[in-house]
């Protein structure tokens, strides 16, 4: 089975909002990405991401949460210009990202929006010292620096990510480092280019539990010290809570809920968010929640209309099979795409059906 990129429609989405104002750093409107399955003549389309609207503000940490196959990595790759979108736009500081053509513009964007990859074991070339990636980034994105300055800058970013003594660490080969250290190198590479927004794709999922805390704390520090925003992509909603200001929950290519972290976690509106929260192992909780849910994410091949969660949803009504729910306001800057969910203001006091556990 081969995955062939679908044709891209370069048209702007309808909602080309005013980016750049209100501290908005990056904004997507109707962002969609489909992949063609099978051969060239195949008509079957995998809908990886459909109609995603999201905003990332300056110095904000946004978590994109979902299970594997929910499309969260595709979003990161769209933002990193690895794929062009099938439809929709990405506006970065008011400029449409996929209209950047000149090498200068593309380098500018890639320098401001670098990506940190999931697997620190395969993201680095084993035959080069770890300084290679950082130095190369500096040469490419900050050509004004001379060799001496590049070395100083590399040591500075290694210090920030907690790899000390930096001078020694720079001389190491990847195999001489632990997973946690390699992931820090990944962040150092991103930091070297003075980023505005770091795309971090599951940066801790390959790491040991004891190492994760250090990386999560470092991510929080990067915002404070380097002034960067972060898109933190994860399937671990607990770690998302730990670092993120806002959470976007994805399910089968749709953003089903987004809002401020504590609001989404304390008053989850979408049944999927509720399921996700109830599944988090918590040694401090007493009872074992029992659920018949087998946890199978759907394969979103040529989906019709309707809510994609309906087969697993115990609140599903007829409408869910007919009409794709659009995000509706549930509270201040809190949206959920569900027909059944009841917004905060109305539901206060009376328990909504989708609200009960």
């Amino acid at each position, binding site marked *: 089975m081969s995955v062939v990129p679908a044709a891209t429609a370069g048209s702007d989405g309808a909602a080309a909002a005013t980016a750049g104002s209100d501290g908005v750093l990056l904004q997507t409107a109707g962002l969609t990405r489909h992949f063609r399955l099978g051969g060239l003549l195949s008509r079957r389309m995998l809908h990886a991401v459909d109609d995603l609207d999201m905003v990332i503000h300056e110095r904000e940490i946004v978590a994109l949460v979902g299970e594997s196959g929910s499309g969260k990595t595709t979003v990161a790759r769209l933002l990193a210009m690895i794929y062009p979108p099938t439809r929709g736009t990405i506006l970065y500081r008011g400029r449409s990202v996929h209209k950047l053509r000149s090498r200068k513009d593309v380098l500018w964007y890639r320098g401001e929006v670098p990506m940190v990859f999931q697997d620190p074991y395969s993201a680095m070339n084993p035959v080069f010292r770890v300084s290679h990636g950082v130095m190369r980034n500096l040469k490419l994105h900050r050509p004004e620096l001379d060799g001496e300055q590049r070395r100083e800058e590399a040591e500075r970013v290694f210090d920030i990510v907690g790899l000390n003594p930096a001078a020694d660490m720079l001389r190491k080969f990847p195999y001489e480092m632990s997973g946690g250290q390699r992931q820090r190198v990944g962040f150092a590479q991103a930091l070297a280019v003075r980023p505005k927004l770091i795309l971090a794709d599951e940066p801790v999922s390959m790491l040991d539990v004891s190492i994760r805390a250090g990386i999560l*704390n470092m991510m929080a520090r990067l915002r404070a010290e380097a002034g960067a925003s972060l898109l933190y992509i994860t399937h671990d909603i*607990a770690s998302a809570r730990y670092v993120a200001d806002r959470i976007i929950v994805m399910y089968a290519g749709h953003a089903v809920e987004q809002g401020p972290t504590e609001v989404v976690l304390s008053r989850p509106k979408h049944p999927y968010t509720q399921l996700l929260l109830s599944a988090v192992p918590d040694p401090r909780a007493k009872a074992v929640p029992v*659920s018949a849910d087998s*946890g199978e*994410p759907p394969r979103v091949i040529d989906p019709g209309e309707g809510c994609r969660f309906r087969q697993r949803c115990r609140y599903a009504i007829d409408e869910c099979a007919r009409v794709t729910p659009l995000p509706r306001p549930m509270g201040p800057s809190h949206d959920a795409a569900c027909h059944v969910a009841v917004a905060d203001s109305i539901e206060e006091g009376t328990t909504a059906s989708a609200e009960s556990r």
Partner: protein
Amino acid sequence: MSENLLEVEDLSVSYLTDTADIGAVEHVSLSVHAGEFLGIVGESGCGKSTLLFAIAQLLSPPAAITSGRVVFKGQDLVQLSENSLRLVRWRDYSVVMQSAMNALNPMKSIGAQFADTIRAHEHMSPVGIKARSAEVLHLVGIDAAHLESYPHQLSGGMRQRAMIAMALLFTPQLVIMDEPTSALDVVAQRSLMTQIKDLQQQLGFAVIFVTHDMSVVANYSDRVMVMYAGQVAELGETKSIFDRPLHPYSKGLLDAFPSVRGPRRPLIGIPGSPPDLGRPPTGCRFHPRCNVAMPQCTTTEPELYDVDDAQVRCLLFAEHAAPVATR
């Protein structure tokens, strides 16, 4: 000898390399009762998978058992020949490997792989094989139609379930699991854990469950063993380890993951990384990363001490308790 199903006594495993022998598992003793769920927790490189392979007699060079016994149903597995092992392995104990993606043969259907497994250990008619395969697949909640399916046609969760079904083909008394959930999402993980626990209660087998994520076993295991640098750091009832961890390392592991409920607390994690087992630190192996290390920790190697019902390898408890007799 005893009513314990499995008795591991003073087991040590080394990787014999040209330059040095690296002790991956050092003097580990543990027991598993019939029907018990034992969780083994530790970071990568702590020797937990090596221990598990040593128990299952699946080590291959350069790894070798250098001392100790693995007594399973009164028989020392270490002494058994490959032919005698064949009679016990998979029939009485089975192993679920970490990555179902790699453990299943991509070129063969699930049914064909089940049939291979059955034929390796028992003479059974094709009809019998088919019936038994369908039966175990049904046990883990997969439709028997998937016997015709190839691994790539199943989702990650289903592949892992199929692996567990394969481990149950002969209704063993002990199932050894090496991080079966680590590649799964939280929802699939919770569902798989619940299913393992259900099957265990239904069929009565014992489970040794290895994981690096302590929270996974919290609600399912009877006892937990925390390993660090090839040694037992702490062994005790699950509830007491989670409520009142004794070893600073267990405490660190418990504080290392964030919670979705309750107040947001800063995570401390555990500084540094696990030691190189070729050159373990002197004294207590955890002392370079320990936040309550004392001067004697750098020189004195702690024994396993009995504290209430638990065992803990930490000098903090040296005065209060005598070393555990078996070591």
